[in-house]
């Protein structure tokens, strides 16, 4: 079964800005899924539509086969949300926040109390249970948002940039925690602009940029693909026959242009050797950077800056 299925979703904001254009996305039950993209790509807008915080312009959203338009109440009951920005009542005590949240989802007080205590202990907030939320540190607020999202035992946990601005130690411990609850059966969708985070946690991934999904695949194939580099070679004479480049992938763009794919870090000398052996003369060569690679390079840069 699909935990989340988004079809042709578009969102145009009131000011006319098109934040999402016809995106489609499926997340299987039990998956640990990353929605990766640079700032402003449309990640929070997507999450906002799925969680009813933002009104979509067109398209459909199904949560565990329940259409958000047809049965919002049921669809909402499956989801637990950790939003990007803190959104607590700052004056309310930590424990009250959890119990109140449980109540909103129809959980009777007799269940909410032990559930809240359990999460407070698991997330290291027990000592702070009577503290008003505004008096918590940033890291504690992050953990409280996770506890709040889990209190009603959602089948689908959605986290919008949960580790942005979080120190490395806390980030690692959040990763461990999330891996555990995923193993215990909760489907998790996480947005991030750290490739490293997606790589560490997720099995499947979609990459979003400028309101469009540019890639939707499993983590392994993405990493394999990102490991390849493409070079465009201009040839002096038309190359009309097929040549054997010993396992290197190449294809024709036109008679005097070919593209060759290499693993990152492989030596270029070998290509030239092989080509000259076949009497092929190369006039010029350039590195072809496709959109995905470009994005990837950006994401790696932001990750490196952040850590």
């Amino acid at each position, binding site marked *: 079964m699909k935990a989340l299925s988004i079809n042709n979703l578009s969102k145009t904001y009131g000011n006319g800005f098109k934040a999402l254009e016809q995106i489609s996305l499926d997340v299987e039950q039990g998956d640990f899924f990353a929605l990766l993209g640079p700032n402003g790509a449309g990640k929070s807008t997507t999450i906002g539509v799925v969680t009813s*915080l933002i*009104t979509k312009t067109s398209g459909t959203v199904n949560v565990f086969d329940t259409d958000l338009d047809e049965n919002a*109440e049921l669809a909402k009951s499956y989801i637990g949300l950790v939003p990007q920005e803190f*959104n607590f009542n700052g004056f309310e005590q930590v424990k009250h926040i959890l119990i*109140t949240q449980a109540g909103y989802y*129809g959980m009777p007080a007799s269940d909410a109390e032990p559930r809240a205590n359990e999460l407070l202990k698991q997330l290291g907030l027990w000592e702070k249970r009577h503290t008003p939320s505004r008096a918590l540190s940033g890291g504690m607020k992050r953990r409280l948002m996770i506890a709040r999202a889990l209190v009603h035992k959602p089948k689908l946990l959605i986290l919008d940039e949960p580790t942005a601005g979080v120190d490395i130690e806390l980030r690692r411990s959040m990763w461990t925690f999330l891996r555990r609850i995923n193993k215990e059966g909760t489907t998790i969708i996480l947005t991030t602009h750290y490739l490293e985070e997606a790589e560490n946690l997720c099995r499947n991934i979609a990459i979003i940029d400028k309101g469009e999904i540019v890639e939707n695949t499993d983590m392994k194939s993405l990493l394999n693909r990102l490991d390849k580099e493409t070079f465009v070679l201009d040839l002096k004479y038309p190359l009309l026959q097929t040549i054997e480049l010993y396992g290197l992938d190449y294809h024709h763009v036109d008679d005097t242009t070919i593209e060759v794919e290499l693993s990152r870090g492989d030596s270029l000398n070998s290509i030239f050797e092989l080509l000259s052996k076949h009497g092929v003369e190369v006039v010029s060569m350039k590195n072809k950077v496709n959109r995905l690679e470009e994005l990837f390079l950006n994401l790696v840069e932001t990750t490196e800056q952040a850590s």
Partner: protein
Amino acid sequence: MNQTRRQRHWIAFSTLVTREIRRFFRIWPQTILPPAITMTLYFIIFGNLIGSRIGEMGGFSYMEYIVPGIIMMAVINNAYSNVASSFFSAKFQNHIEELIVAPIPNYLILAGYVAGGTARGLCVGVIVTLVSLFFTHLPIEHIAITISMVILSAILFALGGFINAIYARSFDEISLVPTFILTPLTYLGGVFYSISLLPEFWQNVSLLNPILYMVNAFRFGMLGVSDIPVVAAFSIILLFIVLLTSFALYLLNKGTGLRN
């Protein structure tokens, strides 16, 4: 979690009401104490000091005459401002998102806030009533009318506070309506005088003021005198409740001020 939908709704509603009540008790120096003090001052100044010179009004001592109006004034102000400030600050701090994301139908969100505001109105109303007993004796002629009128008025003004908070974009905008509309209408709504004292033209103008009807119907419940027919008061207040409820729900469903 195998409750029926109705049970879940009930839990969600009572959670929201509990949260609202906990909120105004937590900040009682801002929510409960000030109206108690202000109204006590009204009793002392208007009732005791000035009232003793005014003599009778509508067949009662001036103190007795103004007590119902002052109680009503406290109730509607507090019902209004409780919902206005609580709902606005939920928007301001973004924790309104908790409710939007949760599986709670909009009418229950509205009902929860209105019930919270009504609770604060009544709570302050009871305190002011108790204070008034230090100054005068309070007959209650028609208990059912007294109680239903005070509850309906609290509900109506809680609804008003909700709509105000939906439109408000700053804390200033939730004090605008109380300052420039509510307070003048209350003062001109027959709290301190019987409109029979006014020239005919101003009597007729006063009849356009909905608060006049509530104050008089409430006074009728307590003292048995009223400037207007009590049935008219109930009809008007029920009509306004229906109108404001529909409008508030319309705004909520549309997501005005809440969703992009």
